[in-house]
């Protein structure tokens, strides 16, 4: 099912979605675009390349409350925070970011114990993926082509959107997407010419150039295993790193979290919050022992986790080439160059 709407009328579409549930869409903030919960339909702005933070927070919020309690009161008076989620619409996620949800699904939803929060948030959400603008060049930090991800891949989205001049074409990818498109009266029917344009756009997206190298998961896994004890290499590539952790926070596939108790006077909440393997105390044990005291050990952990451990454990590289870590690194560590270096080392 192909529908369309004039981009000028995007706020009408936003208002229609807000009538049905929670809308998360790109909004221009002071330092750039981010996905935020829309309060006013006019906030939605599709004139962006990509957002500063990845949209992972839609399913894995920075803070997730587990339990509320009063300190000093009996344990059985604590209450579990119920997760009664309204339907949610994630509007405008780029193909590489949509791919990240599939990678996270394997970890949170499809292996071992299921994470109930991730699962429920995924189930209640409809994803409106949005192709990159193929008329404009990729940003220098991007390399999703390396990971086999096109600039207009609809897979993983429920509805996939493509810009055609002043119009936005919306095509259903899943039954969930088809259902919502049928319900949105604000949309117009797509024409045969729109359908042709959409299909060609998807094809062209495969050839969209980002930085690209030949990266076979088995080969990089093996290479990193061989390189593990090459302290000279890891010291060199991490020499500028200040362990700030920004790479992990903006990353769409970083999922490390802390579980902590936050108390204010007698009110307490046990919750999980994002954490980062780049922090010095991430692996600090109560005995004082810390297996990763050096910055090179922590960067080695991060790179290995994405390009080696994740491949060994789940069969896929845990990176989608969005380039956010590179773009936001305050000391210009470029993960793409690092992987290139590793392959040559």
């Amino acid at each position, binding site marked *: 099912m192909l529908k369309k709407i004039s981009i000028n009328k995007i706020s009408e579409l936003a208002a229609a979605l807000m009538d049905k549930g929670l809308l998360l869409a790109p909004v221009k903030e002071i330092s750039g675009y981010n996905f935020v919960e829309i309060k006013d339909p006019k906030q939605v702005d599709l004139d962006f390349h990509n957002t500063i933070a990845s949209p992972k927070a839609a399913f894995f919020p920075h803070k997730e409350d587990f339990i509320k309690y009063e300190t000093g009161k009996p344990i059985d008076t604590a209450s579990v925070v119920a997760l009664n989620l309204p339907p949610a619409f994630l509007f405008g996620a780029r193909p590489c970011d949509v791919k990240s949800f599939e990678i996270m699904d394997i970890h949170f939803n499809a292996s071992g114990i299921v994470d109930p929060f991730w699962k429920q948030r995924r189930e209640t959400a409809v994803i409106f993926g949005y192709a990159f603008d193929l008329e404009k060049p990729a940003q220098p930090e991007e390399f999703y082509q390396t990971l086999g991800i096109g600039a207009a891949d609809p897979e993983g989205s429920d509805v996939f959107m493509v810009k055609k001049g002043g119009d936005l074409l919306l095509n259903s990818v899943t039954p969930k997407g088809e259902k919502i498109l049928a319900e949105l009266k604000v949309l117009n029917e797509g024409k045969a010419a729109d359908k042709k344009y959409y299909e060609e756009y998807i094809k062209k997206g495969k050839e969209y150039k980002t930085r690209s190298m030949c990266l076979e998961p088995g080969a990089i896994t093996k290479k990193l295993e061989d390189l593990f004890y090459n302290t000279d290499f890891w010291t060199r590539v991490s020499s500028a790193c200040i362990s700030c952790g920004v790479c992990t926070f903006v990353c769409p596939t970083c999922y490390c979290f802390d*579980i902590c108790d936050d108390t204010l006077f007698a009110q307490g909440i046990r919750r999980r919050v994002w954490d980062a393997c780049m922090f010095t105390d991430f692996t600090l044990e*109560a005995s*004082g022992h810390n297996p990763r005291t050096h910055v090179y050990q922590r960067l080695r952990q991060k790179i290995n986790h994405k390009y080696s451990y994740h491949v060994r454990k789940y069969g896929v590289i845990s990176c989608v080439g969005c380039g956010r870590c590179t773009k936001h690194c305050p000391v210009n560590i470029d993960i793409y160059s690092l992987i290139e270096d590793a392959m040559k080392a």
Partner: protein
Amino acid sequence: MINKNPYIPVPVEITKIIDEVDTHDIKTFRLVFLNKDDEANFKYLPGQFAELSIYGKGESPIGIASSPTEPGYVEFTVMRMGAVVPGTVTSALHDLDEGAKIGIRGPLGNSWPIEFLEKKNIVVVGGGFAFTTLRSLINYMLHKDNRKRFGDITVIYGARNPGLLLYKDELAAWEKRDDINSIITVDKGDEAWQGREGFVPAVCKEVAPSPKNSVALICGPPVMIKFTLPVFFELGFSKENILTSLEMRMKCGIGKCGRCNVGYKYVCSDGPVFSLGELDELPRDF
């Protein structure tokens, strides 16, 4: 774990606290489930652990020290941490009295591989505080319903001095039994000490357990492990027949939070029990 939300602890009451050592910083806590369903869901094997939970303080992953053959309760031996970094949960736990109620999440992790151990001679080597899940296994194997499933049982357990030995009553009881060869040693005895003196590696060399159809389970401080392993290699134990239990900082305990990995394995869900053969496959990152 049957609980639908794996991050929510269930309530237990501390019904007994045993002050284990002269330094008073290691206590055994006996916990009884407040709800029968929770007790039924907490089916564990020796070698597993659980997250002990105090609201307002946090959670701490602790090995289960009791044996599943002891119904009605579950025991944890906990050291009060805080000498180097704040041991917030263990300190709070040590400050509690009998009758206090806390939370528990588990059982978590794999276990000592019971099926693999069956019909084999078992050599248990423990040092100091790292004896808790080994005690669980020993009591499991010594239970009348289980004893015949295992071959000879040899236990070599050492501490720095007699006052630091854990489970003193049980150690004495094992010495009286003829279906377990229990060798207790201390680095240095005091005036009252009638037993053996000597470091664990040296005692292992002296006892020289046969590697034939045998599995060694070794837990202790790094320095003990370092000098004990060569003894067992020299005796002829293969890496597949030497098992240990790892520790890493943990949070979720279910393989989700990304904290306790050694290479591509998570200590919480793939471990904590590994053979030396398995550890050889992983990077030295622990």
